[in-house]
């Protein structure tokens, strides 16, 4: 058995890391809900594990999402993560081949070059030497990029980088030093014994010529081991906790386990999977207007520390732009809502005073939503469209109604929200309708996610498109230049991007924009933020409008009454909902038809 006292720091660090990880993961596992535990046991030995492994390879090792965002940033991550793993695997194989035993000490491959100089016993030794050197080179380039990024983040597509905590810094500096030290240690030893591959051998040759490598190599091996120890000890308390945790998270997610209304075990896995890469910082619209310490990365950091930071929880538009770019896919909005729940008084009996009226029978229910009542042009257009298409519909909230519950849910008043969900659901089901249509993406999102309706729920853009396809309404193209603003709740919130665009391309000249679909801006009117002043919100709105105006649209179209209202306040351009544009298009088509009839 190979042994030298310098392996002790490495072994200590590794054992400490394993102990902490086992303790933490066990704690979070216990905190998982019953339903989640059941899911975990149900799926862990199924085909889903293969899907999970595939995702782990693509995201945790290859860092595919980061590659898509910025090639150099992707390369940096992939070279360190995948390179390191391959180095461990190759090192282990090499060790096993050398000792021809199945079992080896965990430090054997790490310090193999120190212990083994006579390599003639290893089959295809030259190949292994080459591979190990090659992997080390790849990692060293990655580390070089990481150091470079510290000073020139713009080249990696990052305007702002995360402000780090002290444990993050310890871990970072140790990871920066681990591989250069390994390189030096291996080179020095290679210089001593005239071994090594193209990298360590060449460097060793050079070092042996200019330095007293016989004296230097031993302390450098010590240094290498100590750095590994420091990294392992700092890891569970630093952002590098994401390395093991993300693997666990990807598995859990593949088993259908995700944060749902309560801050529990899975939420712990999620917040500990955040690498604090800071990709979420630049996309946040609050940077410019107010705060630079509430972005997803900082909110998650404070949650990880079990803090109940009221401002970080409530100062957020819940627009989902950060979620959209998160390479780990952490559901920040859901987590923020659970944090809000911890901070508010949530009373499930708050709406007991509401009484239930009777509901008429109909095929289709139209639920305008409170916001649509504040933009009556949208609801009256929608009613006209339904009339034109001869739909047998019931206007469920014509004379006022119970709120859908989503604004309460966003505020963290989940029990209160669910009590409203129950009341509305009863009304909806009483009608015997098969389709529920709403004009408000905020309502639409909660209908989809919380109502668990046995009937279909549609946003009006989906329903209108269906009416067009079924030829119940005919549209005429006005050739007006239109840009389409994706509402957060409809776009990133529900994934509805294409239906509104298909309608608009039939009614107008739809001009694509740079920041659209999942990269669209929040209008600034979000119900999610409780901390911004009216002036700060309007600053967001004006910035977004300015970008739209660069396309010189005749109409700025949207599919959300709240976005419409928010823009209408400041815009000089015409702001219209899709329903209004469709109605104008139907009426225009009718006029043309009449003219044709007269001519005939």
């Amino acid at each position, binding site marked *: 058995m190979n042994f030298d006292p310098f392996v002790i720091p490495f072994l200590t660090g590794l054992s400490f890391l394993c102990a902490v990880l086992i303790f933490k993961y066990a704690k979070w596992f216990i905190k998982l809900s019953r339903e989640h535990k059941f899911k975990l046991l149900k799926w862990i030995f199924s085909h889903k594990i293969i899907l999970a492994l595939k995702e782990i390879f693509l995201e945790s090792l290859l860092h595919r999402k980061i590659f898509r965002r910025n090639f150099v940033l992707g390369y940096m991550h992939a070279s360190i993560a995948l390179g390191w793993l391959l180095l461990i695997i190759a090192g282990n194989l090499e060790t096993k081949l050398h000792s021809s035993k199945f079992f080896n000490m965990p430090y054997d491959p790490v310090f193999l070059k120190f212990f083994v100089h006579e390599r003639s016993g290893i089959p295809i030794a030259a190949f292994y030497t080459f591979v190990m050197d090659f992997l080390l080179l790849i990692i060293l380039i990655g580390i070089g990029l990481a150091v470079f990024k510290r000073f020139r983040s713009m080249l990696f597509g990052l305007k702002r980088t995360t402000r780090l905590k002290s444990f993050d810094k310890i871990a970072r500096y140790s990871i920066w030093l681990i591989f250069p030290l390994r390189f030096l240690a291996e080179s020095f030893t290679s210089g001593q014994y005239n071994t090594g591959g193209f990298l360590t051998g060449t460097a060793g040759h050079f070092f042996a010529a200019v330095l007293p490598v016989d004296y230097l190599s031993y302390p450098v091996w010590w240094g290498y081991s100590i750095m590994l120890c420091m990294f392992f000890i700092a890891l569970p308390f630093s952002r590098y906790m994401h390395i093991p945790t993300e693997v666990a998270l990807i598995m859990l997610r593949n088993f259908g386990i995700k944060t749902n209304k309560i801050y529990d075990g899975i939420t712990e896995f999620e917040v500990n999977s955040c690498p604090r890469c800071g990709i979420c910082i630049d996309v946040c619209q609050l940077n410019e207007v107010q705060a630079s310490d509430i972005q997803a990365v900082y909110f998650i950091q404070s949650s990880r520390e079990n803090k109940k930071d009221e401002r970080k929880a409530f100062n957020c538009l819940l627009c989902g732009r950060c979620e959209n770019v998160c390479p780990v896919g952490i559901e920040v909005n859901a987590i923020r809502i659970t944090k809000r729940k911890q901070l508010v008084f949530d009373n499930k009996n708050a709406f007991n005073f509401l009484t239930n009226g009777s509901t008429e029978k109909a095929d289709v229910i139209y639920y305008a939503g409170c916001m649509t*009542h*504040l933009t*009556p*042009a949208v609801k*009256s257009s929608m009613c006209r469209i339904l009339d034109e298409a001869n739909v047998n519909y019931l206007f469920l909230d014509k004379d006022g109604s119970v709120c859908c519950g989503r604004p309460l849910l966003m505020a963290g008043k989940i029990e209160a929200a669910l009590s409203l969900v129950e009341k509305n659901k009863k009304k909806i089901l009483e009608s015997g309708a098969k389709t529920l249509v709403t004009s408000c993406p905020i309502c639409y999102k909660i209908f989809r996610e919380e109502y668990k309706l046995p009937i279909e729920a549609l946003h009006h853009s989906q329903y209108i498109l269906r009416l067009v396809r079924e030829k119940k309404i005919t549209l005429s193209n006005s050739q007006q230049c239109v840009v389409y603003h994706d509402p957060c709740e409809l776009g990133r919130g529900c994934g509805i991007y294409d239906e509104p665009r298909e309608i608009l391309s039939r009614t107008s000249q739809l001009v694509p924009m740079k920041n659209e679909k999942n990269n669209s801006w929040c209008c600034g009117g979000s119900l999610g933020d409780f901390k911004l002043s009216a002036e700060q919100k*309007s600053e967001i709105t004006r910035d977004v409008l300015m970008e739209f105006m660069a396309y010189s649209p005749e109409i700025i179209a949207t599919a959300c009454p709240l976005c419409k209202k928010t823009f209408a*306040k400041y815009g000089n351009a015409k702001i219209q909902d899709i329903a209004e544009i469709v109605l104008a298009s139907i009426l225009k088509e009718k006029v043309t038809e009449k003219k044709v009839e007269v001519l005939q």
Partner: protein
Amino acid sequence: MSKNVIVIGGGIAGMESSAYLAAMGYNVTILEKEGKLGGHLLKWERLFPTKRHGKEVLEFLSQGISEHVSIIYHADIENIERKDQVFNVHLSKGTSLKADAVLIATGYETFDARKKEEYGYGIYDNVITSPDLEEIFLSGKGIRTASGKVPQRIGLVHCVGSRDEKAGNIYCSKVCCVTGVKQAIEIKEKLSQTEVYCFYMDMRMYGFHFEELYKEAQEKWGVYFIRGRLSESCENADGTIVVKVEDTLAGKPLKMTVDLLVLLVGFVPSEGTRKIGELLGLSFNSNRFIKSADEHTMSNVSSEPGIFMAGTCTSPRTIANTIMDARSAAATVASYLEGYNIEKRTIHRNLK
């Protein structure tokens, strides 16, 4: 040779300041975008609090416009250059005018009630604005609903586009409360059987005789005042309007059907005020009106020498205040032109 002053805008402020500047012996040119002098005064039949006719005030102002005042109608200013002390104003017709001082009197326009979509202006036929009602008074036609019926109940909504952060205007427009009271009385004078409801946040009856008018509306005419801001209105099948409001004195939500809903729209800076201010590189205040050098002491002085303001281009004002401000502006301009430089006095702003 006497000096030239260009007055931009021929409304109340422009007319009265021109009259005083001409009387002091300056060559005054009014640049008016319309074909007529008078501005908003042309659109108001009677004025609060005395119910005197608008045209009486207009006649008075017109008497000040002597042969020493030249007027260019349908003026469209393309550019204003400044060389040393002299301004060169270029109009779109190709003419250019030289001036030693410029007085901006470009005024206000009423808030576009369509921006407050929940009130239904431009969507429901029986929702009109206070200027629309004034137009009905001026035309001499009776007050009728869209379908031509005599309205049995009319609602007046205060603070539409004023004191409303959500509409982007946090300030009070100063004239709408009392305009509402005046119009409520006028409705009762014409249709004594019609019920009139005013929905208000609080009644700002700060002016002389305003309180008396308010009292008269309640005691003599039986106008109902309900404290509460309208949340939304919607339309019944017969075209009547349902308003939803919280009666904050009774502490109850209220739903009421009216035949006609009048929105008392507030002041916003006019398009001309924005355009001329930007053209001359002036500062604007947080409410987008042109910023005065000092709110207490130098309301007519702009951030640039030789450029002055009169009237509602700096803030909402009543007619009486606009006339006073116009005369004050004339005096300020004269101080500048004669080199007395009274307008250059400094006032310290304690930043603490």
